[in-house]
């Protein structure tokens, strides 16, 4: 039976990093969950991005070996509204992605997730996305990397934005572009403590951020063939391993049924009190591993019956 891979995105430790946690500490926390993969945010985790010191790169590989972790996804951004008075051109967008592909490759990553600027309330990506990606498919192929835009709340699976990405894959036939699912799209109860970067004004103006868009987990079947990586977004898991927002008891069986065998990379986005994330990530791993084992045990039993 196929099984999940477990990882952690350092996004989980937002606000801890630089105030109470170093990158070394983060490696230790991730490794101690029993994870095999580490996900970073390029701009956040790599000093002097986009040109880290050589000594830092050496140390990066030494840490990977010491903590027995493999680099998974490298999150990056295409800052389309780069200046007050002008947007990025296709050429600039392509150059940004090429830069991130090369850096991600240099650090041993398998995926990059470029976050494109958007042009409207529906979060439609700036139209340069298509040309900027297209020009990088050969480079991505050469470097053995997959470019993954993120399907992120409030954008669900069945939506023109997702459709456009799928159409692009089908048109080009590429293996170097796919979809990343952020499990925040399955959120079905309101968030009590928001740990994302949005302001009070935005919260008031966009309640879907807080209430959740409750994408049916069955919709995963539409796109799973294009999904090699999942960010396991969550906000609050209590002492009984009950998640207050994300329905893991429906997500895990569906992913198992669909044969998903890629990473679940923890993205904690709850209360940003110091050190809380460390424990929350551990609870999520305990919870998902428990659900996976329960599914496996039930399948085994059914097969033996």
């Amino acid at each position: 039976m196929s099984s999940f891979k477990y990882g952690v995105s350092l996004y989980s430790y937002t606000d801890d990093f630089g105030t109470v946690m170093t990158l070394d500490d983060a490696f230790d926390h991730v490794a101690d969950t029993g994870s095999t993969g580490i996900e970073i945010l390029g701009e956040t985790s790599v000093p002097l991005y986009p040109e880290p010191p050589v000594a830092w790169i050496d140390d990066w590989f030494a840490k990977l070996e010491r903590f027995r972790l493999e680099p998974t996804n490298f999150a990056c951004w295409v800052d389309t509204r780069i200046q007050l008075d002008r947007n990025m051109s296709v050429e600039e967008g392509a150059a940004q992605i090429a830069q991130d592909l090369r850096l991600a490759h240099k650090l041993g990553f398998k995926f990059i997730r470029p976050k494109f600027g958007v042009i409207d309330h529906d979060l439609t990506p700036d139209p340069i996305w298509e040309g900027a990606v297209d020009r990088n498919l050969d480079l991505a192929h050469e470097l053995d990397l997959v470019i993954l835009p993120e399907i992120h709340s409030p954008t669900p699976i069945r939506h023109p934005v997702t459709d456009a990405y799928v159409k692009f894959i089908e048109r080009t036939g590429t293996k170097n572009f796919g979809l990343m699912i952020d499990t925040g799209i399955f959120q079905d109860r309101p968030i009590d403590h928001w740990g994302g970067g949005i302001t009070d004004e935005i919260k008031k103006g966009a309640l879907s951020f807080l209430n959740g868009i409750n994408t049916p987990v069955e919709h995963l079947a539409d796109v799973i063939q294009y999904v090699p990586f999942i960010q396991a977004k969550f906000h609050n898991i209590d002492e009984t391993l009950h998640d207050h927002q994300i329905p893991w008891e429906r997500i895990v069986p569906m992913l198992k049924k669909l044969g998903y065998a890629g990473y679940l990379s923890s993205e904690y986005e709850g209360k940003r009190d110091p050190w809380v994330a460390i424990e929350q990530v551990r609870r999520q791993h305990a919870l998902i591993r428990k659900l996976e084992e329960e599914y496996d045990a039930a399948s085994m039993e059914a097969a033996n019956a």
Partner: protein
Amino acid sequence: MLERSHIQSTGFRNVGPEGARTGFEVRIRQANYRSSRLSLIEGVDITVDGVVYPAEGNLFRLGDKEYTRDELNEATQTRLYVGDYFTVVVPKEGGLTRGVHLVGSAIRYRHPYFPPEFQPAIVRNERHATIILP
């Protein structure tokens, strides 16, 4: 390491010669989860004891270099890294009095991946901080 609050205790001080202060400055940590090109920061408003010092009149210092708001917009390739801080320099004849002040900051971030109506996103912080040398 930096204090968790955006506004730092250390770095809140008067500037200019003693007895003839020209203003004060406030140290603020990168309050975003990712590093920012300076061109994505549209300035920082400072409030002290209810008096607002709008971004337009303040300078933004990163390392040894000071930026006006126009200069921030030009600095597309310079980044404010996570774990780093910047300093807002506020002109004010005589500086601030010795003692504890209520200090506020409002950083105007432009996040290209937020819908246009939420630009800039204003990230606020407020705390008590102390001027030791008037």
